[in-house]
C-alpha cells in the first residue's frame, strides 16, 4: 500500500523496498501520489462549495440576523439580544415552544414500541409476509401534503373517522375544530407515518443480530420474553437510540401537516415552532425575530443531531 504523504517523509519500512528504490524513483512515485491526492480534493470540492454556501453560510447569517431587526425594506439594525429577550416574554412564542415539545414527545414515545413491535412480528414466520410488509410500509410513500389533505377529509365532523367511532358508540369528535383535540389529531398522523419508517430500521437492526445468539438462548431454555429481554433489547440499544434521535429531529421539523390542516389554529394550539418561524418571517416580515427563533430550534436540533453524528462516526478509525 503506497500511502501518500507520510511515505515521503518517513523511511520506507521494508528494507528490500529501500534497496530497490533509488531516490529518483521514489520522487516520481511521490508526485504521482500527489496527483492522486489532487484529484481526490478536486472531486470533493463541488460538494464542499455547495454545502458551504447553502448550509453553513445561512447558519452564520441566521446567527447574525438574530441580533438585528430586519423587515426586508430597511437595512438590518443591530439590536443586541433584544429579540431573544422579547421572545422569552412572548406568550405566543412560549406557547409555540410548548406545542412543539408536546408534539415531539407524543409523536416519538408511542412510535418506539409500535415500530419495534412491528419489526419483531415481521422478523418471525408470517403468512403473506411481503404483502403485509408493503401494506404497512405504505404511509411512508404518501407525500406529506397529500397526507394533510386526506386526513383533513377524514377528520371532518361527518367524516369517516367519526362515522367509525359512531359504530363503537362514541360521539363525534370535533378533531380539527377544537383546540383541545387539534394537536392530538396532528400527532396521530405523525405516528401513522413514522411507525412504518422506523419499523424498517428496526427490522434491519434485528436482522443484523446473529442467529447463533438465539440458538444458544434456546438451548439454555430461554422463553420468548427472556430472549427478547436479554438478547434482542440489549443488542438493539444503538438502533433504538438512533431511532429516538432521528424521530425527535423529524418531529421538531414538522411543518407541512399543521400548516395545511390548521394553519396553527385553533387558538394557536397547533402552531409548532417551524410554522411560527415561517409566519414570523414570511407573513409578518420580521426576519430578525424569526432568525432568533431559528436559533432556538437549532439548539434543539443540534443537541440531538450531535448524538446522531456520534452514532454515525462510532468505530470510525479513519478520522
Amino acid at each position, binding site marked *: 500500500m503506497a500511502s501518500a504523504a507520510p511515505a515521503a517523509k518517513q523511511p520506507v519500512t521494508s528494507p528490500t523496498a529501500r534497496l530497490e528504490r533509488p531516490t529518483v524513483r521514489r520522487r516520481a512515485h511521490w508526485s504521482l501520489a500527489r496527483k492522486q491526492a489532487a484529484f481526490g480534493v478536486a472531486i470533493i470540492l463541488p460538494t464542499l462549495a455547495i454545502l458551504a454556501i447553502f448550509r453553513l453560510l445561512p447558519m452564520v447569517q441566521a446567527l447574525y440576523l438574530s441580533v438585528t431587526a430586519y423587515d426586508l425594506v430597511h437595512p438590518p439594525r443591530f439590536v443586541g439580544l433584544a429579540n431573544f429577550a422579547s421572545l422569552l416574554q412572548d406568550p405566543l412564542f412560549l406557547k409555540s415552544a410548548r406545542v412543539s415539545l408536546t408534539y415531539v414527545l407524543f409523536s416519538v414515545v408511542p412510535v418506539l414500541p409500535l415500530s419495534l413491535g412491528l419489526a419483531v412480528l415481521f422478523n418471525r414466520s*408470517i403468512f403473506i409476509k411481503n404483502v403485509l410488509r408493503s401494506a404497512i*410500509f405504505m404511509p411512508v410513500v404518501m407525500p406529506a*401534503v397529500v397526507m394533510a389533505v*386526506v386526513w383533513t377529509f377524514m377528520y371532518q365532523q361527518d367524516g369517516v373517522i367519526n362515522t367509525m367511532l359512531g359504530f363503537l358508540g362514541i360521539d363525534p369528535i370535533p378533531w380539527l375544530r377544537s383546540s383541545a383535540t387539534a394537536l392530538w389529531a396532528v400527532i396521530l398522523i405523525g405516528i401513522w407515518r413514522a411507525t412504518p419508517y422506523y419499523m424498517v*430500521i428496526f427490522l434491519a437492526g434485528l436482522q443484523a443480530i446473529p442467529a447463533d445468539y438465539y440458538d444458544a438462548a434456546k438451548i439454555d431454555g430461554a422463553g420468548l420474553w427472556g430472549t427478547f429481554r436479554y438478547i434482542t433489547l440489549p443488542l438493539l440499544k444503538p438502533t433504538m437510540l438512533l431511532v429516538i434521535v432521528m424521530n425527535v429531529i423529524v418531529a421538531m421539523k414538522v411543518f407541512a401537516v399543521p400548516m395545511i390542516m390548521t394553519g396553527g389554529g385553533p387558538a394557536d394550539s397547533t402552531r409548532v415552532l417551524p410554522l411560527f*418561524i415561517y409566519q414570523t418571517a414570511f407573513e409578518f416580515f420580521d426576519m430578525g425575530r424569526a432568525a432568533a427563533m431559528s436559533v432556538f430550534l437549532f439548539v434543539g436540533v443540534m443537541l440531538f443531531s450531535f448524538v446522531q*453524528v456520534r*452514532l454515525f462516526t462510532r468505530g470510525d478509525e479513519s478520522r
Partner: protein
Amino acid sequence: MMTPSESTATPTPRRGAPPQRWMGRALRRRGTIIASCVLVAIACVTLLPFYWMLSSSLRTMETMFSLPIQWIPWPPNWNSYVLAWRAQDFTRYFFNSGFVAIAITASNLLLCSLAGYSLTKFRYRGRGVMFLAILSTMMLPLEVTMVPLFLIIKRLDWANSYQGLIVPFLVDGFGVFLMRQYMMSIPKDLIDSARIDGASELRIFWTIVLPLCKPALVALAVFTFREAWDMYIWPLIIITKDSLRTLPLGISLFMSSYGTSWDQLMAIAVLGTLPMILLFFFLQRAFIQGIAATGLKE
C-alpha cells in the same frame, strides 16, 4: 406480542417427547397465525387513508358523507379527475415537481458518490475535518436556515426560478455519508490495479467504482427522489409564480380554494401519490433499503 403462545405452553406439565415436539410445532404455527392476524389488522389501519382517498375520489359529492358508508362507490364518478385536473394547471405542476426532483436526484447521485469516493480512497490533509464538516451539515435543517437562505436566493435573484428550487439541494450531507460507508467496502487493490493498467482517475471512477456502488446508488436515488417530491416549505417560500409551482404547492392551493370539493381534492391526492406508489412497487427493495440505510451506523 408473542405471549399468547407462551402462556399456553406453561400449563402443560407432561413432558413426553413426541407430544411436545408436535405441540411445539402447533404452537409455533399458532403464533404465526396470531401474528399474521395482528399484522393484517394493522395493515387495515395503515391502508385506510389510501382506500378512503381512492374511493372518495370516485364518489359524487351527494354521496360523499351518506350513511351507511358506501365502501365501494358505484357507479364510479371519474369526472372528478377531469374537473380537478382542469381547475388548475396541474400538468405544469407535475412537470415542475418531476423536473426538480429528477435534477436533484441526478446531481446527488453524482456529487455524493464523488465525495464518498474522495473520502474513502484518497489521502490528503484535512480529509477527516472535511468529512466531519459535511456530516455536521446534517444538523442544519432547512427549517433552521430558511430565513437567511431565502435572503441569499433573493440576492442571487433566484426567487421564482428552477435554480432556486434545485441548486441549494444539489448535494446532501447524509447522501455523502451513505456513499462513503458503502465505498469503504470496495477494495483499494481494485483501483490500484486499474491505475497500473493506465486507466485515468475519472475512468476508474466511472467504469469501476460506480458500477460496484449500484445498490447504494439505487437506495440513495429513491431516498432523495422521495424527499424532493415531498418538498413543501422551500417552494412555498420562494415560488409565487403559478408556472413554477410544484405539485405540493398546487395541491395546497387547490385545498384552500376548493376546500369542500372533496371528490376533486381526493382525485388530485390520488394523482399526487401515484408516482410514489409506482416507484415503490417497481423499486420496492431499493425503497426499503434506502430507508433502512438511514439507520446505518457502522
